[in-house]
């Protein structure tokens, strides 16, 4: 679990994402996923945050590999890829 100090350094969006189980949240809830990227993901059938999490887990939580996939296959920018992989990494640290 994260302490107050760690939570302070997080964006409000990341903090919100980490504050409760992932449930049925839409993919746009994941920190780093812009509106445009969310549309790309939804067209690929990745409409829920848990599906993106699944992809991250399938890649053995390898951030570099996940980022490469998000950029090459889903049209993410480097920044979006880094933010979202960090978000999912933090989520795994909290909940898994």
């Amino acid at each position, binding site marked *: 679990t994260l302490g107050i100090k760690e939570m302070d350094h997080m964006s409000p969006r990341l903090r919100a994402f980490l504050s409760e*189980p992932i449930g049925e949240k839409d993919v746009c809830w994941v920190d780093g996923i812009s509106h445009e990227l969310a549309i790309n993901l939804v067209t690929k059938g990745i409409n829920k945050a*848990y599906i993106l*999490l*699944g*992809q*991250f887990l*399938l890649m053995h*939580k390898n951030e570099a590999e996940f980022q490469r996939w998000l950029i090459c296959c889903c049209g993410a920018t480097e920044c979006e890829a880094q933010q979202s992989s960090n978000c999912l990494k933090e989520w*795994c640290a909290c*909940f898994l």
Partner: protein
Amino acid sequence: MTTSQKHRDFVAEPMGEEPVGILGKKLEERGFDKACVVLGQFLVLKKDEDPFQEWLKHTCGANAKQSQDCFGCLPEGCDAFL
């Protein structure tokens, strides 16, 4: 319905790095060496029972009972942590 001790143990603990028990060896050979990776596959298949069982049969030759048992653990594990 009675659940096996293994099932109860699986559901009770946070899913992380423990090796996959049920079809362990075969899944390990194909790179699914941790429970969280099998969970990843389950989530990518949108938590749908049929495609997941099909995947399990196809990936490691699980029979109907084994794949049903494996599937049986996952939604409960999901509810606890997802």
